[in-house]
């Protein structure tokens, strides 16, 4: 069974440019999450989709970040325009059900560098 897949694995862009990250969750997982780790700090929650609906987007840092999950399958996270402080690794994760004890499975991450 394929795990959570993310694309691109690495991206280097200039400040002010746009980047779109893609995530394909594990097949059959309705719950999809975005997290990020910047500047070697802790991993922080960004948002949570249940199917195509945003269940919780309280962790989105500002309106330069836009996440979508059309059709409840894959998701994209767009950063526009990118700033230097957006550099870090963006993790996508998925789970079958939304239950506090349920395991969330993470992808390999998309490593973003803004120069």
């Amino acid at each position, binding site marked *: 069974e394929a795990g*959570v897949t*993310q694309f691109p694995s690495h991206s280097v862009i200039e400040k002010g440019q746009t980047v779109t990250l893609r995530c394909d969750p594990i097949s059959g997982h309705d*719950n999809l*999450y975005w*997290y990020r780790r910047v500047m070697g*700090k*802790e*991993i*922080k*929650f960004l948002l*949570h989709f249940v199917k195509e609906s945003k*269940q*919780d987007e309280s*962790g989105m840092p500002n309106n330069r970040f836009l996440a979508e999950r059309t059709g409840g399958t894959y998701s994209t996270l767009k950063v526009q325009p990118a700033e230097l402080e957006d550099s870090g690794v963006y*993790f996508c*994760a998925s*789970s079958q059900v*939304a239950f*506090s*004890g349920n*395991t*969330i*499975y*993470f*992808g*390999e*991450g998309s490593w973003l560098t803004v120069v």
Partner: protein
Amino acid sequence: AQSVAQPEDQVNVAEGNPLTVKCTYSVSGNPYLFWYVQYPNRGLQFLLKYITGDNLVKGSYGFEAEFNKSQTSFHLKKPSALVSDSALYFCAVRDESSGDKLTFGTGTRLAVRP
């Protein structure tokens, strides 16, 4: 608000020796606790979790963790370290009040020397 503390930035241990990576937590309700590992240039891999029941939880690659409610701790352990265990380890917590969010610690780098 929930929080996780990993007091050690780095843990050094010799191969074959036991290892412990410490984690303490703070939640308002019953905790659900997780350990993830990140190998160099890789993603987060699930190791083990505590939901309820036996305080000693066994997970992947020979790791185990002990839930201690009175000390609000969930330390990760392994009886005999391998060089291949060298990685970044993250402790995480959820409770019912946090919805579906995981709150992570800052991570502990484990270095196992041959």
